[in-house]
Structure formats: structure tokens, C-alpha cells
């Protein structure tokens, strides 16, 4: 028996074994990170830190990218065993990115889980803020970036607000109570409310 998490510098280490969900996300990020920066948000943050619930999609923010970069990313994802719900070619899928619409990738011959790629620009102020203020989290050898905990909690409470989101927020508030900083809630609240 040990603690659920500890800190190593500014990285939150979750003290658990990897799951198939972690390996799925890691495989996707191993490709994505070669081409573009990212931030994992929403359900994966809560589930990574022990919230016991199922999930179908893993939300990931990525900055909008030009077509050449997207083409290389898209082709390598396909070669690495992922398929895209929206289409099999760059010509079919890239317009979703330019229109700021989400696209989804799953492993070949699987539907779920999928990576829901959410394009962002500086115009989406709250999303851009969390994207540019990442918190590092680690499970075994898998290190990844999430929003500041206080931001993630408030976003779930103020913007999303569904039963599942409020339950996730409660989990995060309780599990990380010792490292959450109250003053950060005050700092983040107006930024998050700008999205309402």
C-alpha cells in the first residue's frame, strides 16, 4: 500500500500500473508530438488520476497546423495503425481542421477509445490559456501534459457542468486537495468565464 500520487519537482507522478488506455494514448502521442504540440484535457485527466469510470474518447487540444504538417502527421498516424473517422485522405480531413472542427482517430478495426483532436488558435482564449500553461503528469514511463488542475476543475464546473463533469471535478478536488492552490481558482475563473 502506498500513496496515490507524489510530486517530483513540478511533475505529478501517479503511483499506479499502466492501463491499455494509457498505452493507446501514448502510441498516439508518440506520433503526434513529432509534428505538433498538444494538451490532454477533460476525462483523461480524471481517469489518469484514478476516477473509476469508462470513457469512449480522449480529448486533445492541438494548435491549428498548415496542410503540409497535417499531411505528414496524418500519413504517419495511418502507418502507425490508426484510422480517422472523418476520412482516409488529407483532402477529405484537412478541411475539418481549417473549419476548427474536431476529428477523431481510433486504432484500426476499433471504434473506441478514440482520440478527439480539437484544433485551437489564440482566439479560443480559455483553451489557448490552458494549452500554454501545461502541468506535467506521469504514469510509469509515460509523461504527458494536462491543464493546471485548478483550471481543469473550474472548466468542468463552470463550462461543462454535466453530472459526469461535476463528478470528475469532485474527484480531482478531493484527490489533489493537498496540492491545489485556492488563489489559482480566482486567477483562472475570469479566463474560463470568457468562454461562456
Amino acid at each position, binding site marked *: *500500500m*502506498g*500513496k*496515490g*500520487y507524489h510530486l517530483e519537482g513540478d511533475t505529478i507522478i501517479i*503511483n*499506479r*500500473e499502466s*492501463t*491499455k*488506455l494509457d498505452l493507446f494514448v501514448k502510441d498516439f502521442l508518440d506520433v503526434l508530438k513529432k509534428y505538433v504540440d498538444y494538451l490532454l484535457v477533460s476525462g483523461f485527466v480524471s*481517469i489518469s488520476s*484514478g*476516477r*473509476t*469510470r*469508462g*470513457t*469512449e474518447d480522449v480529448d486533445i487540444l492541438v494548435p491549428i497546423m498548415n496542410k503540409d504538417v497535417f499531411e505528414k502527421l496524418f500519413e504517419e498516424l495511418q502507418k502507425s495503425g490508426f*484510422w480517422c*473517422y*472523418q476520412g*482516409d485522405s488529407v483532402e477529405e480531413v484537412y478541411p475539418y481542421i481549417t473549419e476548427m472542427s474536431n476529428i*477523431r482517430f481510433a486504432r*484500426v*478495426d*476499433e*471504434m*473506441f*477509445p478514440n482520440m478527439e483532436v480539437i484544433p485551437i488558435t489564440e482566439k479560443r482564449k480559455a483553451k489557448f490559456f490552458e494549452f500554454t500553461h501545461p502541468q506535467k503528469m506521469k504514469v510509469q514511463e509515460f509523461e504527458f501534459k494536462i491543464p493546471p488542475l485548478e483550471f481543469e476543475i473550474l472548466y468542468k464546473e463552470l463550462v461543462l457542468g454535466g453530472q459526469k463533469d*461535476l*463528478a470528475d471535478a*469532485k*474527484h480531482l478536488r*478531493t*484527490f489533489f*486537495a493537498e496540492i491545489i492552490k485556492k488563489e489559482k481558482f480566482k486567477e483562472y475563473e475570469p479566463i474560463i468565464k470568457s468562454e461562456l
Partner: protein
Amino acid sequence: MKEIDYIALYAESLKEDNGLFKQQKRLIESQFQGSSSLFRGMFSPNFKANARQYLRKVGLL
């Protein structure tokens, strides 16, 4: 006790006992297995084409 209270109680316990993560791992991996069997059964052998048809029907495409 409401569901949200159970969530808080579980998170408190998990903070002190990482052995509880094993239950979560079992749930996640069982969901993977169930989803995989279900959709392969529904969509094979033309998985992508059938999956996209389904996604249009449920409004995900």
C-alpha cells in the same frame, strides 16, 4: 449518501492506498475488451465503411 459523496470517499481512500488503482485498471480493460468484441462483430469485414455508416446514423459524422 449521494453518488458525489461516494466519489469523494473513493478519492480520499485512493490518495492513501494506491492498491485501489487495480479495480480501475480492471474496469478500463474490461471496457476495451467489450467494445472491441462488440464493434468487430457489428462491422467486420468492412469495418471502416460500416463504422462510418453507423457514425453518421448516431450523428458523430
